[in-house]
């Protein structure tokens, strides 16, 4: 029944294309396009996409998910064309490489009548996507700052290690600073560590030489946090209630939180599994009787020892 209903909705919007594919076989075809994983977070996303594919296809035998990853924006644009012409997809879940060069290709998929779900990076033109699924960068900064305020008191000193200079980094940093303001906590300095372990290690070494009194570190990212911890241990300044707050949800960090690590006691979620959320929601657009279109902004959950287990995926590469 539900399927018929979904088919009906789709038929209104795109009678021609849809009729073609629905008659050819009864399956709902959903293309999932994202960049080829070149770093740990993206590898985690790849893993979660594959997990979601297995789970959803088992749950709904009439749903066919087609996963495609592309090494650059041009290749992703071609992949989108193929998904329309070869696979005749009914819906597209896309994590664009870059916003600008992929806006037109996604618009073309939209014109074929397919449902569009955009993940993580928005397109440069509003109104193309039916559904937008993303993490919350300002919230990540705010939640981190709130935790800092809960642990530290007036006059305590922290240092901040930032990511690669980008909009994402700015959103996180600005929200963090806005939340810290007025709390009496001193932010001694902030430097870019490029979401990278080696840079995290070196920048933290220099902070430790420069500032004799540091009470906590906001590393913003789990890779940076790992470098920071190595530098703290080398300098023997990992005691006295020192703590580091990272972000993202790397499995090694989550494991540490579960085991009661005092140096990294919490993590703030910016999960690669959001691709799975997007795939679920897109399937629901065909299967559920509830409306799905809109914006789905994930919370930046504070992961503590109590809830860590539900965010721990030992088999994921991230």
């Amino acid at each position, binding site marked *: 029944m539900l399927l018929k209903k979904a088919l009906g909705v789709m038929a209104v919007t795109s009678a021609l294309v849809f009729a073609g594919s629905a008659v050819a076989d009864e399956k709902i075809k959903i293309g999932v396009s994202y960049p080829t994983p070149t770093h*740990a977070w993206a590898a985690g996303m790849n893993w979660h996409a594959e997990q979601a594919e297995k789970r959803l296809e088992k749950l709904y035998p009439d749903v066919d998910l087609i996963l495609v990853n592309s090494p650059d924006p041009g290749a992703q644009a071609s992949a989108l064309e193929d998904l329309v012409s070869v696979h005749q997809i009914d819906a597209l879940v896309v994590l664009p490489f870059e916003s600008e060069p992929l806006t037109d290709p996604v618009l073309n998929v939209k014109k074929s009548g397919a449902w569009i779900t955009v993940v993580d990076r928005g397109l440069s033109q509003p109104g193309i996507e039916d559904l937008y699924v993303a993490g919350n960068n300002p919230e990540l900064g705010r939640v981190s700052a709130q935790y800092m305020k809960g642990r530290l008191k007036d006059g305590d000193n922290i240092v901040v290690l930032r990511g690669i200079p980008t909009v994402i980094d700015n959103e996180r940093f600005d929200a963090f600073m806005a939340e810290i303001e007025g709390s009496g906590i001193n932010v001694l300095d902030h430097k870019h560590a490029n979401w990278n*372990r080696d840079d995290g290690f070196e920048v933290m070494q220099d902070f430790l*030489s420069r500032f004799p009194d540091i009470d906590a570190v906001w590393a913003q990212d789990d890779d940076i946090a790992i470098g920071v911890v190595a530098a703290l241990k080398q300098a023997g300044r990992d005691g006295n209630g020192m703590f580091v707050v990272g972000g993202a949800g790397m499995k090694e960090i989550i494991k540490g939180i579960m085991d009661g690590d005092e140096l990294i006691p919490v993590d703030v979620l910016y999960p690669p599994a959001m691709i799975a959320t997007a795939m679920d929601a897109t399937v629901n657009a065909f299967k559920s009787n509830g409306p799905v279109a809109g914006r789905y902004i994930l919370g930046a959950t504070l992961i503590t020892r109590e809830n860590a287990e539900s965010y721990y995926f030992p088999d994921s590469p991230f």
Partner: protein
Amino acid sequence: MTMSTTSDDGEGKTAKRQSIDFKTLGPAIALLILCIIGFLLNPAFISEGNLTNLLTRSAFIGIIAVGATFVITAGGIDLSVGSMAAAIAGVMIIVMNNAVETLGTGVPTVLLGCGIAVLLGIGAGWINGALTTKGKIEAFIVTLGTMGIYRSLVTYFADGGTLSLNFDIRGTYRPVYYDSFLGLPFPVWVFIGVAICGWLLLNRTAFGRYCTAIGSNEAVAKYSAINVDRVKTLTYIIQGLCVSFATIIYVPRLGSASASTGVLWELEAIAAVIIGGTVLKGGYGRIGGTILGALILTTIGNILNFTDMISNYLNGTMQGLIIIVAVLLQRSDWKLGKN
């Protein structure tokens, strides 16, 4: 770092000695100025802890740059070193993790890993050398190709994520980076050892003179009965060996390797070599200068972390300016009126 300043200016240039003093001393002066700036910005700059950090950090780029000095002196270039380091680190970690069951988590496993690293370094260097000489492809293209290959191999080995060394082996291996001998951390000793060997090889052996000759004029070198292909291949093998030494002291630092390991190390190594006074088109090389060049590059980054006067976004600008000024200092004609 003290051994390197004056001892190795090229022979056969005595006629111009008065005027080249500034050129050989250029990198040393630049480093000195940087250190004074660092001290003025924050006296903690010359604290023992910071100087030790600085020297240890320079070791990676410095050791690789010693190898690059040979390649560049002989007229070649190697763009693959950063990726090569990442790939070697990746394979080392995989081999050591797999050897835990048979060899345990002690010294033998670490030695096995180091042995593998040396073999891989030599092999990778030989591939670059053979493709350049026997394959007759420009070094730039060969090493651009291998750069991409090694980088994607480490991504593949790590399944896109990060390879992490077994926690118990890390305990055994960790002192190689973090422990000291006579007040200097082990990586600095390795750096000193590689620098001395490199200096002797370039300045006191026939091989070193062949490198210079080939870099000056390959055709003439060939007619002078120098086995050009063999010498050039050897320079790439030395480079590969240096990369494996750098990797052996890099891995115990964080115990991990990923696609972001060693990114842009090739450019830093080449910059260190050129800041040190070696000529990019070949024919003249200075190991001592290279070491100063590596120290200068690391010091710039260190100083930028010691001040908040300069916007973070301008770090690259400062680095670029200092590199250009350092080279300007030793290249331009500073004879003041004599010309």
